[in-house]
């Protein structure tokens, strides 16, 4: 499943579309502590978190995750939104809790 396929399922709202939509999504990854996500987030994963600040975008860019999924109704603040546009990072969002958001990705991948 590519990131474009995930976006097309319409289960997440779109905050920003990056330039990596053809990338395959390797799986969900959950973590809110950026310093742990920094070391552990697999490249190509869909990173589910509630942190929507500018550093989230930097960590996403450096770890090369496929996208950020903001759970629990979290949203990007204004500076983070600008940075996501600037760095072409795909950011999706949902009202679902973290586990359920990650589970939807997992189920789509294993359908």
């Amino acid at each position, binding site marked *: 499943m590519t990131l474009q396929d995930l976006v097309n399922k319409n289960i997440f709202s779109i905050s920003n579309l990056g330039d990596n939509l053809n990338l395959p999504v390797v799986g969900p990854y959950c973590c809110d*502590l*950026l*310093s*742990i996500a920094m070391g552990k987030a697999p490249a190509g994963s869909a990173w589910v978190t509630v942190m929507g600040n*500018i*550093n989230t975008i930097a960590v996403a*860019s*450096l*770890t090369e995750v496929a996208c950020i999924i903001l759970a629990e109704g979290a949203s990007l603040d204004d500076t983070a939104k600008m940075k996501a546009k600037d760095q072409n990072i795909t950011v999706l969002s949902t009202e679902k809790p973290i586990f359920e958001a990650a589970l939807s990705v997992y189920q789509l991948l294993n359908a």
Partner: protein
Amino acid sequence: MINYITLTYQVSGDDFTRAGEASSDVKSKLKQMGVSPEMVRKVAISMYEGEINMVIHAHGGIIKVTISPHEILMVLEDQGPGIPDVEKAMQAGYSTAPENIRSLGFGAGMGLPNMKKYTDEMDIKTKIGVGTTVTMKVKL
């Protein structure tokens, strides 16, 4: 690949909106040079951790990155407060980051451990009240 190149970055302190810019720049330059994605990730992560530390603890500093055919050398120098107990600071989970930093998602005490994990060599020279120099090497 280019034989030898040195990049210098001034990291401004307490400015979280710009933290990570130096690491991002090095990352894109290494990519352009054709360095393998795994090595790029190692350098980007360890340098970003160091850069964030400079912003959180040391009011900024200077980062010099030297790229040669066999290794990438990163030297991060600050005039911050110094690290009182390096051994303790190296322990995963040990953190002195203030509350406002924790609310941004940092301060898990993983910075220095991550830097050690992702580099082949790491050395910390620190003096209380004078500053800290962290030297890291990633072998290509």
